[in-house]
């Protein structure tokens, strides 16, 4: 296990570094010089050269990369060429909002998928179980932002029970904070819940066919008790893998959902950065999102090994 952990950790570090090179190279391809853009067309060559020196863009690309990537390691994302403010604090502020959004969406998805998927598996021969499968198939076809628009229509326009958008920080008013996040959580969670339901169903179905479950029942446990005690842990192995993939999907889905509900998260920051041509900001946010996806994959792989002793 330790050896596996070390090897997997090395892969994580290496991929993050290579991803950093890719993101940096991509942005460095950009036509145009940030110093020239910042000063406008009437700038003197001397002024441009001075600003270039200040930005550090007069140095070799490799030196620029090492400086940028080295800075990332201790949370320094550089200073925006456009707004002249440090990027790191903006990202950390927004990261919290997005993390709460994604985790809430995950909780909603799990709260839907585990009971429904298990139910659909246990009752896979009767109409209700089949109906759950059919509804989940439709749920998969609805993108999170469309779910968001539909939810706004039902709960904000028709029922006028929840706000159609906006965000209230928890420190300001916890009640309003919760109200502002309910619909975004549901938009992310309902769709992923539909996807997850299918996986939970097929995982539980597989487990139900296993000999050890029959043995447990033969030893006098009821079928629910046997499933609860022996089945769910085994069924959780494939589900955890999908959950990890979904966490990454949710993170990207959050970018779009933040736009629907006007929530100041990382996605909002990213899109504002693109609109304002603040490329160092875009570079920083993309790097954080990619690193998050890599980290999620790492955690999933490790969790997989912990859950399944056969893999050790």
């Amino acid at each position, binding site marked *: 296990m330790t050896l596996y952990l070390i090897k997997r950790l090395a*892969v994580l570090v290496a*991929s993050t570094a290579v*991803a950093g090179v890719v993101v940096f190279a991509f942005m460095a391809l950009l036509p145009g010089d940030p110093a020239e853009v910042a000063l406008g067309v009437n700038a003197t060559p001397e002024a441009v050269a001075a600003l270039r020196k200040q930005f550090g863009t007069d140095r070799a690309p490799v030196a620029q990369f090492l400086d940028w990537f080295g800075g990332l390691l201790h949370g320094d994302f550089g200073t925006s060429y456009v707004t002249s403010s440090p990027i790191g604090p903006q990202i950390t502020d927004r990261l919290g909002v997005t993390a709460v959004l994604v985790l809430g969406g995950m909780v909603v998805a799990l709260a839907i998928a585990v009971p429904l998927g298990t139910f659909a598996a246990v009752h896979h021969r009767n109409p209700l179980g089949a109906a759950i499968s059919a509804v989940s198939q439709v749920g*998969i*076809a609805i*993108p999170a932002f*469309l779910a968001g628009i539909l939810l706004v229509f039902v709960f904000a326009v028709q029922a006028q029970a929840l706000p159609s958008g906006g965000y209230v920080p928890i420190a300001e008013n916890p009640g309003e904070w919760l109200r502002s996040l309910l619909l975004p959580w549901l938009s992310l969670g309902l769709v992923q819940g539909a996807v997850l339901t299918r996986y939970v169903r097929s995982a539980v179905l597989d487990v139900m066919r296993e000999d050890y479950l029959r043995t447990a029942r033969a030893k006098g446990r009821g079928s629910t008790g046997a499933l609860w005690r022996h089945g769910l842990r085994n069924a959780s192995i494939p589900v955890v893998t999908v959950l990890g993939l979904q966490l*990454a999907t949710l993170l990207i889905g959050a970018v779009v959902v933040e736009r629907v509900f006007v929530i100041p998260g990382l996605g909002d920051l990213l899109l504002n*950065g*693109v609109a304002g041509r603040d490329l160092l900001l875009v570079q920083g946010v993309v790097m954080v999102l990619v690193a998050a996806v890599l980290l999620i994959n790492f955690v999933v792989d490790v969790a997989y090994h912990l859950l399944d002793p056969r893999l050790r």
Partner: protein
Amino acid sequence: MRGRVNAGLVVGGLLVGLVVLAAVVSFFWTPHDPTLVDAARKLQRPGGGYLLGADKFGRDTFSQLMVGARTTLYVGIVAVGIAAVIGTPLGVVAGMTPRGWLSELIMRVNDLVFAFPALLLAVMLGAVYGAGTLTAMIAIGVATVPAFARVARAATLQVMVTDYILAARAAGRRRTAIAVRHVLPNIGSVLIVQASVSFAIAILAEAALSFLGFGTRPPTPSWGRMLQESQELLFATPRLALWPGLAIALAVLGFNLLGDGLRDFLDPKLRRIRAES
């Protein structure tokens, strides 16, 4: 044929057929010019030749949906094409030399690309080159490569242990000949199923990108942008969000059902390959 026609295949085929029909017909005929701005018909209610009404610029919703189907299919075909053309050979090579360094390299690069979702790639491409249908297609295509490579690799691994491959090798066939003559035809059905499923994901991605303004540019109609334009009018005219939303959901549902149906139709054993990959 090997399988039995099933419900998924029929319903999925019908829905996909409907999208294709709308797109093809839109080349010859739409009820109105989908990009024609007409202040007199601003937010017109359904009826009077405007089957589903008109948007805030007086453009006919039904005509926009028809031409939007074209955009959706165009992006899906190019994106899935990119993914299949790049991903399949990589997966086959990785599957034919499972213990080699090349296989290891391909799968590592694959994992890395996997960390760049279509949306991030499209935003990066958009920031550098300016967003449009082309950048969206390329981003979605590149982001789908890992899925194709993984599925192709898993299927190739299964084909490589069969007797006919052993026979071909014993007969002294070159690797490229084995790949083209024996491996590709036998993993074809897996790839077709993957293409259908990837198509559904590409439609979702294109809709999200157009919604964010990183996809198809105006005035070309696109379902995702129709939704984005409808959002501010959700209180007054919710039907403007209903139709493009329904179109996206039905198209995605169609390709997903078609994929599942094809899997069962072409080879029931395929369920296993996909589950393992």
